[in-house]
């Protein structure tokens, strides 16, 4: 399984291929992309910075917790760092399961929890300058 922070551009298909296996009836993939606005301001770019070792460990811990709750789910996730343009994928979570209910639930829980826990920060570039989001 992959729980990775990378500078390379993200694609969903390699992660989906990793979690799919003959016993899986479906894969649910969430792709987070850079949006062109935030809190009423225009965004021109987002810079992501990570505490890489800890981020990857926290992602692995998340996956282990998810497997406690949804034992038949398989997960893979990648988060990108660096300066990203509008529309570029920043994070991808892929979850497979024998039945789609578990895949949807696990994927949703993983991305929601990842965003609270994983030490990755965003700096928003827009009109009037750049600011670290919190």
């Amino acid at each position: 399984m992959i729980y990775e922070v990378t500078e390379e551009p993200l694609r969903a298909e390699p992660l989906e291929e990793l979690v799919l296996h003959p016993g899986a009836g479906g894969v649910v993939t969430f792709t987070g992309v850079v949006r062109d606005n935030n809190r009423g301001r225009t965004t021109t770019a987002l810079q992501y910075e990570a505490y890489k070792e800890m981020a990857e460990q926290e992602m692995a811990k998340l996956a282990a917790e998810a497997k406690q709750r949804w034992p038949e789910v398989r997960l893979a996730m990648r988060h990108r760092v660096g300066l990203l343009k509008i529309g570029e994928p920043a994070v991808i979570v892929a979850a497979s399961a024998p039945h789609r209910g578990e895949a949807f639930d696990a994927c949703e829980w993983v991305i929601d929890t990842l965003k609270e826990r994983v030490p990755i920060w965003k700096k928003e570039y827009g009109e009037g300058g750049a600011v670290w989001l919190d």
Partner: protein
Amino acid sequence: MHITLRLFASYREAVGKSELPFEIDAGSTPRDVLVKLRELYPQTQRLSDRLAFAVNASYAPADTVLNEGDEVTLIPPVAGGWR
């Protein structure tokens, strides 16, 4: 004793370094390290004090007793955005 403080995001920019060696007394905690950082680099006083701490790449309470060679990290709020 000797520890390393890792800095990210707004803290890294304010201090101008991503890593700082620190000498601290035995029995010191991450909270003590933060106090010392703010004394040495006053520009960090205006930054968010909603911080979590990590010791050796795992979340740890602010009052964790540190050991020689530990790596302490300040974790400013991570930006998860709105659901």
